[in-house]
């Protein structure tokens, strides 16, 4: 635990695996930049690994003022204990006021371990961060310039704003895909500070016997148009409608959790609270009732078209274009309409 410290920097954990930066630290650079500028402090990234100095440049181009670089052969592969120890030591050395982690599998394994050791607060899976003031009650001290840690809770049915005013650092994991990626500025300059990691074999209790990574079948995060199907599509065979519509639009096919659970499509395609969060230009929701858990993953889409035979379906509450009708007729009509337009041009 460190004391409230207004000069403390804003930090982002520079998650990398096998010498490749994850998307999340980059995504966090734009929000981190905004928080740091609002507070008038520096934005730094903490980069751990073995021979990963080359990644520092990219983080600087994306907005970091400083990189705390800890290189050590024992940091080549991520392990909870070794990474937690090094970051914990750095937090105590520099006393940042904010530390952000991507809510990736690694971030959600690492951040609570650090929070527990540091006896600091940690808010999971935030979808937004802001700077604001908090007054706990009448006649009580106003706490200025805190980090508002905003997250859905209770299965997505409420949005909670969490704060942390007496024990710092203020820490949060941030959901993947909710912050837009910044455009790298190759002219940006930053400072790289080399840190010595104090580690021994004892800090690595795990033996990684095997690892298998597969390519995701679809990259929903970068898709400009997404066509998603829900349980209402009815069957795996009928899900071909979703693929067909996606194909003619050059869109990514997606699905609700219900459709994934019914076996219509692989879970890589799942959008929502337990899937991917997306913000495409166009989201076409077919046979999707619009459970709050699904909306949590797609409501930021620029335009939403909903096709559903139930005019009371919640998805219509957020749709820009509402098509009430049988999807088996409406979807082929959309396909036909798009094909006729592309023939004209």
């Amino acid at each position, binding site marked *: 635990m460190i004391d409230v410290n207004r000069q403390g920097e804003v930090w982002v954990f520079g998650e990398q695996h096998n010498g490749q930066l994850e998307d999340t630290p980059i995504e966090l650079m734009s929000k981190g930049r905004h928080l740091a500028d609002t507070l008038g402090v520096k934005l730094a990234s903490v980069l751990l690994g073995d021979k990963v100095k080359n990644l520092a440049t990219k983080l600087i181009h994306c907005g970091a003022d400083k990189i705390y670089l800890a290189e050590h052969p024992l940091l080549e592969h991520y392990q*909870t204990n070794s990474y937690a120890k090094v970051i914990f030591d750095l937090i105590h050395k520099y006393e940042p006021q904010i530390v952000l982690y991507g809510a*990736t*599998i690694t971030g*959600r*394994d690492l951040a*609570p371990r650090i*929070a*527990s*050791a540091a*006896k*600091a*607060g940690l808010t*999971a*899976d935030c979808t937004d961060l802001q700077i*604001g003031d908090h007054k*706990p009650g009448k006649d009580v001290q106003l706490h200025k310039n805190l980090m*508002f*840690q905003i997250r*859905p*809770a*209770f*299965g997505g049915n*409420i949005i*909670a*704003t*969490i*704060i*942390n005013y007496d*024990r710092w650092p203020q820490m949060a994991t941030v959901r993947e895909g909710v912050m837009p990626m910044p455009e790298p500025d190759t002219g940006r300059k930053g400072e790289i500070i080399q840190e010595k990691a104090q580690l021994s074999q004892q800090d690595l*209790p*795990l*033996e990684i*016997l095997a*690892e*298998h*990574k597969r390519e*995701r079948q679809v990259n929903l995060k970068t898709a400009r*148009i997404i066509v998603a199907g829900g349980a209402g599509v009815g069957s795996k065979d009928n899900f071909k409608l979703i693929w067909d519509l996606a194909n003619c639009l050059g869109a990514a096919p997606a699905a609700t959790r219900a459709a994934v659970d019914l076996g219509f499509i692989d879970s890589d395609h799942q959008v929502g609270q337990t899937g991917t969060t997306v913000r495409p230009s*166009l989201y076409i929701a077919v046979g999707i009732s619009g459970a*709050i858990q699904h*909306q949590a993953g797609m*409501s930021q889409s620029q*335009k939403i*078209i909903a*096709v559903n035979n139930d005019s009371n379906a919640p998805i219509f*509450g*957020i749709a*820009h*274009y*509402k*098509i*009430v*009708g049988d999807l088996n007729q*409406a979807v082929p*009509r*959309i396909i*036909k*309409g*798009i094909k006729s*337009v592309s023939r004209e041009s």
Partner: protein
Amino acid sequence: MAYNCAVLIKQVPDTKRITGEAMNDDGTVNRSALAAIFNPEDLNALELALQIKDKFGGKITVITMGPPGAAAILRDSLFRGADDAILITDLRCAASDTLATSYILSCAVKKIDYDIVLCGRQAIDGDTAQVGPQLAEKLGVTQITYVEELVELNGKTITARRNIGAGWQQIKTSLPVLLTVTGEANEPRVAAAKKMMRYKKAHTPLEIEQKIKAENPDVDEAVIKELAKHKCGQLNEKCLLIKQWDLDFLGADLNWCGRSGSPTKVHRIQSVVLAAKESKDVPANEKGISNMIGELIEDKIIS
């Protein structure tokens, strides 16, 4: 060798079944209208412990922190095959965030003999997945999160497969260890009829006292306490007493419990009301759809 397992479980509101009745007029959730259930992934953690017990022997202790009513999921665990159950209940636990919760749980786990601690990956009310790793840190044990398969237990070493998003990782480490278990790990078994017959009589001291009170409305408080104490002794002899621990019994430092032990505080709660700024009804016929496509092209949404 046999392995002793501690399984941490939580009673949660069934957030997946939020219906109209569970919503207040102002759009907020009426929590009391939601059923309290056994957190789904905690059932997977219990099932994994039961599989370890079936194969190697050992004792399973289930632990929960919550209001007195949380005894229901402890009984459910006994029906499914757990050996011992502990309810941590104390008003001073209220408003604990994940840090304070993990501290209180660590005080309880340190009182029992364990080789493996098992938790569900996350609870459906908060979805934080933080208490497992925080508890591991407080206990000073190695953690393996997102476990989807226990590959091998051999002497003092464990090999597990964990989910790493798009892929998996197989990991070996020494006991003691804390695992957080995902819903993919197994299919939780149902309650066994024989165990249900036996353990439906399992109660916490508080439940016993309330029952005696209800049966003897006119009897003096002191007598009730005496009767309850006697009954608890009887149940304990038959291994039917659900242990009930408070923070004094745990020897917990109150500065690290409840509100004072929780760095995170709620600034504001808002119910989710999402609405499109402008919306249009599109007739589901060719003309309606073709007009919509025209607009989208004009807005450069599609090309």
